[in-house]
């Protein structure tokens, strides 16, 4: 299945902004983070198709996954 991954802020460093991947069925967000070598600590928010998702969520063909780092300054 095809899944689009969008990275934000420093998660783009040495990776990419947006890229389409081919994944096997039942791939979770956690699997994707692992594959992209993104520590779960650096992924504060994940949206799938514009909706907040848990790391255990299984992805479907055509999904767009956006990953954001923790931002807490004021």
């Amino acid at each position: 299945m095809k899944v689009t991954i969008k990275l934000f802020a420093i998660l783009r460093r040495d990776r990419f902004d947006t890229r389409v991947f081919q994944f096997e069925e039942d791939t979770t967000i956690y699997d994707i983070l692992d594959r992209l070598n993104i520590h779960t600590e650096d992924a504060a928010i994940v949206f799938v198709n514009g909706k907040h998702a848990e790391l255990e969520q299984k992805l479907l063909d055509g999904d767009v996954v956006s990953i954001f780092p923790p931002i807490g300054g004021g």
Partner: protein
Amino acid sequence: MVVKIKMDAHNILDFLRENAIDGVLSHKIIEYAVKITKLSFQEIERISLTKGLIPKRYLRNQRVIKRVEQLALLNSCVAIVGCGGLGGYTIEMLARLGVGQLICIDPDYFREEDLNRQRFCNLNTLGQLKAEVIKEELKNINPAVVVKAHTSSFLPEIGETLLAGAQVVVDALDSFEARTDLAETCRRLSIPLVHGAIAGWYGQVSVQEIESNKLIDLFKSSCGKRELQRELGNPSFAPPFISAIQVAETIKILLQKDNNLLLNKLFFFDLLTFSFELGQL
């Protein structure tokens, strides 16, 4: 302008009407009315707005904020938790908009490293308590605003006391632990919370619905994580950018303009590549 009319609290309205030009009151007239009647700036503005007169300071608000809405803002109360980068700009904008009561909460003093971005930090205010400085400075910006300065940290045990009277709370804090406490307190007290956060070129804004735990969960899950601002710092353009969005959301809540609120949504900005994302929490 020379004012020759003698007046007291009873004929204040006549005085204001006679000295308004096309229904608009200059600061000098309002100041004179305050001096003679011993009423506060806020009370004089309230009388004016109630009776159809507009203080000149709000004239350029008018296309966006009608007179009755200006009066509603004057009767409103907003608490700003954190008086640093985001908080300073937010407080200034709310004061210029004419929000009548501002509760400013921050235990810290201005330091040299705040000079790069914090609105009320300058060479004269270094070493002074942020909330106290802001209370003083706002007198020069809009004397109709009543400011409560709390120089204690936001702690859930005293949250209800600190936020007493606030219709909206603005999150201008700088840690997920403190944000979790604040979001839980707002949830418990049924006060809408306007969240903002910055780091380097990046920023995010959200509005917590009264009944929702979404932001609380988000903050909780981020506690203890490596926070980006520690690594990237905060340049001068990030606070006013995010702060302006927080203020717009705050005003919409106060004036019950419910459309397009960022309720339970998160807006993430990347000013380096000028990309942004809006998602449902």
